[in-house]
């Protein structure tokens, strides 16, 4: 059960060693930097040291209580990330698959709109626009 924020890449296989030992189901989700505009080279992520780590851990604990998780892990990167690079991961472990899937989905929906990160698109000319929050992400929270 852990959450962390880091600049460097993470090794999914290494992170999953000893994760959720004894659980019947483990789900992992990895978010990848993609280009929605056709002219983006990288993303730059700003965060709020202290608050961000605390919020990630808080949502992890909420997911654990709600879905009866045996284990959970959240890793979110900050700084400059190139197209195609992994930006974050969540892993959930539960006795049965449905709880593990739902907990991962729940975590992703909440982290999208409540984790203190701010993305900026970097184009060929340098720093570009801040990414605006989407209404659809806010709407997704109503499912929970």
């Amino acid at each position, binding site marked *: 059960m852990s959450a962390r924020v880091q600049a460097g890449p993470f090794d999914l296989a290494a992170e999953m060693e000893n994760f959720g030992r004894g659980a019947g189901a483990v789900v992992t989700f990895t978010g990848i930097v993609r280009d929605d505009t056709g002219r983006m080279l990288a993303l730059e992520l*700003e965060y*709020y040291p202290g608050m961000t780590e605390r919020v990630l851990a808080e949502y992890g604990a909420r997911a654990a209580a709600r879905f009866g998780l045996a284990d959970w892990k959240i890793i979110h990167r900050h700084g400059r990330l190139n197209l195609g690079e992994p*930006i*974050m991961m969540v892993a959930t472990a539960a006795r049965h698959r449905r709880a593990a899937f739902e907990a991962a989905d729940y975590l992703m929906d909440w*982290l999208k709109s*409540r984790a*203190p*990160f701010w993305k900026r698109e970097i184009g060929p000319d340098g720093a570009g626009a801040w990414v605006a929050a989407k209404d659809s992400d806010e709407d997704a929270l109503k499912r929970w």
Partner: protein
Amino acid sequence: MMLDVLYFAWLRERIGQPRERIETRAATLRDLVAELADRDEWHASAFADMGAVRCAIDQELADLDAPLDDAREVAFFPPMTGG
């Protein structure tokens, strides 16, 4: 009271600095915003549309009517875009 005020993303850019330490008597976040917006044109432009700004008191999300009480740190930022 002395208060550390932090800015993130485009609020940081508009104001031109990531944080400042201020002396204030503001009772609520709303009062603090009015006071800050009065400082200069950069602060005024950052706080022009409060519908686009989120706030935290001592690293907990808070709404504009939240009292500052013994707050030590206040942060202003746009809606989050994590994940």
